[in-house]
């Protein structure tokens, strides 16, 4: 699958340098598969009629005109373009060059456009609702993946994201219900997530227990604890303990009036705005501050970090605790973020999806956020298509994000490299 070619570059200074270009057939193969899928849709399940993309709501100040596309012709055009992209990628790889990222992005957008047009033939797609919902659904995933990124960059595998989200959701619901203050619920959720993170850190760092074991077990523990207290305490006293107030939508003046972008990004709840800040802070912090340098040092080469005077285990402990607090904050989305009462196992595997986003995003906060957004988009796509009456059984739509992830991980991401000391305890000798 992978070929290596040698290029002899001659620099202006007449110094000969050998460079090795590793090319891979994975991207062309993945392209070809998706092109065939699109072709199959066009040939075996043709749908006629117009697809209307609605870009604004009636209440918006600035109206963006709808985009009307004839479904059948559009799908054929997309198939042709996809085929061109596939051929181009094959040519690139044959001439020992890499498939550039922009081509992959363009390919994905084209495929998505073709699919949406095909699925929405004869009806109109509310794009604002689709994107708005995608962002909302991605919120816990983004917080979870940020927690995963910080933990793993510091060298501690955090499989307990699911447990931290659940602990955050539970505590937020209870504290907000009792006090009537969603903000207090938010703080309590962060504390709860932090506690789970601290248990993980204590077992992983002090007792050298395998981090995956602790993570898996903590998930079970938090599931058990929250479900137990739900059945035993919350359910009989639902009125006082489990009727959380919700954060109201908070449109940001001016920004929320921008067409398309405004309604999607700037008419959200406080939790979503906190998410923007968190992503920016984590990205900036990890790569441009002393804190970030230290976190990455203890995760990549703890011995070296120790040599220059960084306390490896203390750094790891507090960063895993911080990561827990971030994941706990993400858990608030499920209860006070949506105004829903806590229920058993209500996070439903979101923590594992966040974990997948961490690896998919190659341990980078921005890429992990994008991966989480992709998951959010795919799950909301199903909701939207089932409302307009999709030709595909809903189960297959629900399956789509997971299948796409498998393809992406196998075909495009490939062998992603975790931080070097990820998962290994540091034992000072």
């Amino acid at each position, binding site marked *: *699958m992978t070929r290596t070619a040698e290029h002899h570059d001659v620099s202006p200074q007449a110094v000969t340098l050998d460079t090795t270009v590793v090319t891979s057939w*994975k991207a062309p193969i993945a392209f070809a598969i998706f092109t065939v899928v699109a072709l199959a849709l066009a040939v075996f399940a043709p749908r006629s009629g117009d697809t209307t993309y609605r870009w604004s709501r009636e209440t918006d100040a600035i109206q963006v005109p709808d985009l009307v596309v004839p479904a059948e012709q559009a799908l054929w055009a997309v198939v042709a373009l996809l085929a061109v992209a596939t051929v181009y990628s094959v040519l690139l790889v044959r001439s020992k060059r890499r498939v550039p990222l922009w081509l992959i992005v363009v390919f994905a957008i084209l495929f998505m456009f073709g699919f949406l047009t095909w699925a929405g033939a004869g009806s109109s797609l509310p794009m604002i609702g689709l994107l708005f919902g995608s962002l909302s659904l991605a919120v816990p995933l983004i917080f979870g993946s940020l927690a995963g990124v910080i933990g*793993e960059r510091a060298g501690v*595998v955090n499989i307990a994201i699911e447990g931290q989200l659940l602990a955050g959701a539970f505590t937020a619901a209870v504290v907000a219900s009792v006090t009537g203050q969603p903000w207090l619920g938010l703080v309590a959720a962060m504390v709860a997530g932090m506690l789970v993170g601290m248990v993980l850190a204590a*077992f992983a760092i*002090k*007792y*050298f*227990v*395998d981090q*995956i*074991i*602790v993570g*898996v*077990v*903590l998930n*079970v*523990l938090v*599931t*058990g*604890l929250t*479900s*137990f*207290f739900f*059945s*035993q*305490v919350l359910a009989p006293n639902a009125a006082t303990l489990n009727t959380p107030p919700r954060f109201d939508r908070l449109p940001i003046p001016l920004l929320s009036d921008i067409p398309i972008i405004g309604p999607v990004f700037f008419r959200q709840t406080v939790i979503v705005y906190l998410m923007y800040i968190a992503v920016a802070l984590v990205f900036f912090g990890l790569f441009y501050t002393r804190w970030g340098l230290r976190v990455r040092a203890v995760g990549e080469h703890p011995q070296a970090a120790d040599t220059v005077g960084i306390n490896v285990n203390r750094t790891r402990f507090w960063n895993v605790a911080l990561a827990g607090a971030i994941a706990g904050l993400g858990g608030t989305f499920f209860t006070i973020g949506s105004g829903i009462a806590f229920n*058993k196992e209500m996070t439903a*595997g979101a923590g*594992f*999806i966040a*974990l*997948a986003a961490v*690896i*998919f995003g190659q341990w980078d906060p921005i890429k992990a956020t994008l991966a989480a957004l992709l998951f959010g988009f795919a799950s909301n796509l199903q909701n939207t298509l089932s409302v307009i009456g999709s030709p595909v*059984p809903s*189960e*297959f739509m*629900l*399956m789509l994000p*997971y*299948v796409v*992830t*498998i393809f992406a*991980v*196998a*075909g495009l*991401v*490939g*062998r*992603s490299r*975790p931080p070097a000391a*990820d*998962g*290994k*305890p540091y*034992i000072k000798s």
Partner: protein
Amino acid sequence: MSDPTEPRGEAPRAHDLDPDVALEEPGAASPATGTATVDARATATGPGGPTEPDAPPPSRWHTMLRQIATGNALISVLSVILALIVGAIMIAFTDERVQETSAYFFARPSDMLGAIWDSVSGAYAALFQGSIYNFRRDTFLAGIRPLTETLTFATPLIAGGLGVALAFRVGMFNIGGRGQMLIAASVAGWIGFGFDLPWGLHMLVALIGGMVGGAIWAGIAGVLKARTGAHEVIVTIMLNYVAFYLVSWMLRTPGLLQAPGSSNPKTPGMKDTAIFPALLGPQFNLHLGFLLALAATFLVWWILNRSSLGFKFRAVGINPNAARVAGINVKSMYVYAMLISGALLGLAGVNQVLGTVTTGFTAGIDAGIGFDAITVALLGRSTPWGTFAAGILFGAFKAGGFSMQAAEGVPIEIVLVVQSLIVLFIAAPPLVRTIFRLPDPNAKPKRARKAAKKEVAAK
């Protein structure tokens, strides 16, 4: 993410002594490598060992007492006790009578203490009577029924736990138990209700079909890891969801898995020729599946400890780079390991449809066993017989948990808490030792310490 079974911490130094010995040591390749090999080293260089020639040999009683006090068995027992104590605290605190009596605790403390005792002892008595022996029944046969229930609940946990444990030993983490069980259950169920075959053969075909289904589903992750480097944790998690939605779709589509003439997403019942026979007669639920799980345990033990394939598995699990240098095809080991792992989880799925729930199944047939299996494998330290024992323990908790819920109104989730605490405590022996103030096996006895120090200085 790193390989879960990669030797870490102190382990490599222990292996330096003799790589083959380290390979044969069953705990050495388990995910709890750190603790296991530290213990192994402690026995190798412990009291009476060659490292302290100057020290007078400690008395036999002393040695024996130390071994009991520092051994793994004691840690395991103490871990279970600790977890049960935490469970007791939770039961007591959420009990209504305890809350009522706590209001006047300082006036009449005996009331609250009595209420605590009633709630905790009642719950744990129900747990025991639901899982091992019910003294309230008249005959021995009726009284022992809970024990057979325990074994019935343990059967899929053992099979699934073996699958996860085997993958662990090869350095892979199979979180995809749910998907593999669902696919296996669907294939076995489809053969079980859709075909007419003679008794025995029908069962066998369904069993093999289901196991192959599970193996293929896990094999996807193995092949992708070997060929493209896709991380098996992501792929197996994703395949869980894919399998769930695939099976849900088949269950509501007439002509595939849905029962004819029904609109529920449920299959028809299995044909009698495909159902696992009851082992102890019709009044007990225990079925052939338990013997299959027992056989699977033996088979996995044989594969891991006696076959050359198992040797390669463990070599790859401990150090894939060294294994590659030694001429082992690491990639095909990943594929084989996932295939076997998936087949074992498939056995758990087949066991559900042909043994436990024979009247037709829904998409919830896996009943969370795919995830429980991970805890079982961890508690069993990824060894076959350890997993077997852990499966029976968790089966007992499950059987007893249901009767506890029915008899005392204690939610079954308490079982999850106790189970996870047990694994957590067992994984961290130093914590348990600190709580019970037990001696540390690494700290040498006082008399020997001086001699050991001298030797270190000489090096």
